[in-house]
């Protein structure tokens, strides 16, 4: 069984501050981390590997050279090897160009994969598009928002419990397949010191645009259908109407009228 886990390095957004004057992100002191959804994904991969035995987990990412740190973290968390797809030509890639590059790298480096696991989204862009696009490019069945992932006894299918609006559904897909993973009940793993030391003995393979033989016009900014024009915080659309000067009874009547008018109450 070969599992590919696509991962991404992201800024630790809980610590990001926005300069109120320029509206730009304050970068000082902000660490880059492995996207939390990728950690949950690795958790599923490791669990499958433990149950299945003969399984190899490959973590793959597209990014600048420092994205290697996220691969190191993936190796600590249980991946057996890492692949860094890096080239200046990949800079500025949107989700489509990223998915295309990753698909090419997977075909090149792990052509006999059985299962691709992807975090449902990255916490920096929140698009949730790369996983589904990757499945489309590779022509795979895809299951999104998975919270439990397991193999059938025949090892020919993957069973995924996925989040839907008001509950869950369980979907079976024939392998090879792609699953995007939500947080679910996963408590993030904490590797042991031994895991940390062993991870430094695992290999990280570097792949460039040339090795992948991707046409330049299909990568990076040139291969992107979309561009980020501006980043800005969304306007607060919540409106609050304060009821002034009314006594409690009148205030309650006013709230009741409001709720009826908006049809929150019959």
């Amino acid at each position: 069984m070969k599992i590919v886990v696509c991962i991404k390095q992201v800024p630790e957004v809980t610590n990001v501050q926005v300069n109120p004057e320029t509206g730009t992100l304050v970068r000082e002191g902000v660490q880059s981390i492995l996207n939390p959804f990728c950690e949950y994904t690795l958790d599923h991969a490791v669990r499958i590997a433990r149950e299945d035995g003969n399984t190899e987990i490959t973590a793959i990412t597209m990014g600048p050279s420092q994205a290697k740190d996220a691969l190191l973290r993936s190796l600590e968390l249980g991946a057996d090897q890492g692949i860094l797809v890096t080239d200046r030509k990949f800079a500025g890639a949107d989700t489509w160009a990223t998915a295309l590059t990753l698909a090419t790298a997977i075909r090149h480096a792990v052509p006999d994969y059985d299962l691709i696991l992807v975090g449902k989204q990255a916490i920096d862009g929140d698009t949730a598009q790369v996983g589904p696009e990757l499945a489309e490019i590779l022509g795979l069945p895809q299951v999104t928002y998975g919270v439990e992932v397991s193999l059938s006894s025949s090892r020919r299918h993957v069973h995924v419990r996925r989040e839907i609006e008001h509950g869950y559904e369980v979907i079976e897909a024939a392998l090879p397949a792609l699953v995007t993973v939500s947080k679910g009940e996963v408590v993030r793993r904490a590797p042991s010191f031994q895991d940390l030391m062993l991870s430094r003995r695992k290999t990280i393979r570097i792949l460039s645009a040339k090795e992948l033989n991707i046409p330049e016009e299909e990568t990076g900014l040139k291969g992107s259908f979309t561009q980020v024009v501006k980043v800005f915080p969304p306007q607060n659309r919540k409106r609050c109407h304060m009821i002034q000067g009314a006594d409690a009874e009148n205030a309650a009547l006013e709230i009741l009228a409001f709720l009826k008018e908006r049809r929150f109450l019959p």
Partner: protein
Amino acid sequence: MHEISSQPALPVDFGIVKCIEGYERIKAEYPAYLTDESKISSLPFDYLFFPKNEAELAVVIREMSRRKVRITVAGARTGLVGGCVPQEGALVSLEYLDKVEAVHYDPFAGEWRVRAQSNVSLKTLDGMLKFKQFPMLEQSEKPDVRDEVQRFKEEPDAYFYPPDPTEMSASLGGSVVTNASGARTYRYGPTRAWVRGIRVFLADGEYMDIPRGKYFASPAGWFVLYNSKGEARSFQIPDYSIPKTKSTTGIFTAPQMDLVDLFIGSEGIFGIVTRVDVALLKREDKLSIIQFLDSDKRAIQLTGALRSDQRLQLDFLEFYSKNALDLLRERQKAEPSTVGMPSIPAEAKSALFFELSFNPRDESLDYHALEETVTGCGASLKNSWVGYESRELERFKIFRHLLPETINGILAERKKSSPGLHKLGTDLAVPDEYLLEMWNLYHDLCEASRLEWVAFGHIGNNHIHVNILPRDMDDLHKALDIYEKFAQRAVELGGAVSAEHGIGRIKGKFLKLMYNPDQVMQMKKIKETLDPLGLLNPGVIFPS
């Protein structure tokens, strides 16, 4: 130089100071000011002041002195011994003194420093340093202040303020007057080691600026203070020796000591600290490790080994006893998501938590020394958790705090049926060589008394917090009894009865375990010289 002069603050009208008068009104509108983290209750008091600046503070002190009204001073009210809980008179909250005034480089010491008013919280300071964001200073009217901030921002390194007394909402000034310590004291020492100067208001309303390294006791141990009218007061520093362990028991003293050290850790009985200068240190990447072990005694053995291995430089060294892990396991079963860590391994019967410098990009990690030390104590690196991303370090830290939080939750529940109950947490430290002996005493007496108890905390400094969770009043009395036995033994072994919490208003009797009446009198004489009316923080250190 052992002579120093104080000076008056700018005169302002007493009437402009925000003041809430009358206990009933304070109780109804400002209930948070009736207690602090010790959870002891205030007695009725008459005034609650909120001075907006030092001049307002000075006029409050002068006016209260004129009326002979005693003053309790409150910072962030995070202390555990009731130092901010008034028993009479007035409470002065320093919460408006919350500005960072400068970031500056001291070329002689070769270090960056921060000057801040006393009520800047440690959390605020840490955030400002981490992100190098000082909005007020960047817009300062003083060009030299703006220039220094700019220089600091351009520094390639990041900096931090090393004292980490767990409760990061604590105020900087509060941490200075209590000489706060915590886990990182293991490597960096207590707050005292990082204070480079203070401004302190005395009981007559005048203030002194005391930089470290300028005013020292005379060879005979004297300081002479002159007020702005030229009137002199002198006092002699105590001649007792203080324990070599962590200690916040009573007044610090040392031959020819620096005057700044008299005020650090004095719990505000000599003066009100309004401004502090503290040193910063370069921030390094860290690795947190929780190493599980098969018994508490193994943890003590590994503590000794880690401490004596010169190849390893740990930032802190903390302990979870077997029964502490059991308590956390129960919490994990009940609320896995609030614990936020994987299941504690079933075979773990104790744990040590420590941190060391770490470069995650180093591909050839050489942790041979650590491996050798850990395995040499019969433990395996397989049975550990590690983390180095900042959110991981935070997660480990939260896990550490979860234990006292869980204990407080259990006691709060028990108090509903037995309101007199409270937890009993030790704060004793002993010299290195007596760690095992002290642990055996804790263990044996708690077990023999059939008490419910857990132990955790700063084992690297031989400063384990034994927390007893009484189930009823009978348990509580047993616990109080054995607490005294623990404290007595710690003193006999050359330790401290209060290693980090201070004496405040609730541990006065323990002061007498460590110091004889003559030594206590030496402390009181300084108090009488600096504050003849006993105006400041009555009942603190010396019970009323």
